[in-house]
């Protein structure tokens, strides 16, 4: 599915995740966040860049790992991304939906 987000032509899968993380930029993130009902703060961006870094390095992501990243603990992650601390943050970070059960 093609969509123009923040002036960029972006390809999304059925669930609204970017299929190419390289099409991502901070304005795209802000606009996807609005769809999720989230207004991004510098803290959010710290998480997003951590997620992108890990994903691009080929690392699997789990909420436990992000919670141990030193950026925000798990409780704070739930506050930053209500109802989807890993799912919503991954979508906003322009990376695939995490395929982990934890």
């Amino acid at each position, binding site marked *: 599915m093609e969509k123009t987000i923040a002036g960029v032509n972006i390809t999304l899968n059925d669930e609204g995740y970017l299929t190419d993380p390289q099409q991502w930029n901070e304005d795209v993130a802000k606009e996807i966040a609005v769809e999720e009902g989230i207004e991004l703060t510098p803290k959010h961006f710290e998480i997003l860049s951590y997620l992108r870094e890990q994903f691009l390095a080929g690392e699997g992501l*789990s*909420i*436990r*790992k992000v*919670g141990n990243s030193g950026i925000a603990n798990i*409780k704070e992650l*739930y506050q930053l991304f*209500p109802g989807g601390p890993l799912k919503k943050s991954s979508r906003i970070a322009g990376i695939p939906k995490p395929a982990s059960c934890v």
Partner: protein
Amino acid sequence: MTNKEENPLKKVCIICAKGTIEDVYATLVMANGAVMEGIEAKVFFTFFGLDAITKKQMKKLKTATVGNPAMRMPGGLPFPTLLGVVPFVEAGVSWMMKKEMDKLDIPPVGEFLEMITAGGGEIYACKMAAEMFKLKKEDLWDEVIDIITIGDFYAMCGGQNTQIIFT
């Protein structure tokens, strides 16, 4: 696979009545998986499941090495039931299970429970089982909300798109 379900699940109420590593982790994975999806989760620990939230026991859960036909040796060879009664075999097998889970980033019980409550999940203990095992609130993990009856628990399990799961 898409999540275009028009009538999504809103709440899971999970009852854990057994205290082996795998029974407890099944409960914890389901509860944590729910809160991570924005689904409300309430967990009721009863009978031997209480071990998972009892301070003295929660770090010492074991896998049954006797009467567990699905258990095999590393490499897939059958695991003779009689081997399961040999001293330390149960401890060794349980240690190995925990080691393998750690590789998958699955946390120890206490940390897993913290992850669930961090996401708004609620943990309860069964009044009848607590009385039977002579356990008081102070014997239980600090974030256990309360010791309640099954009736109290059912009273929290109402609402549309709620499921009760028994492990």
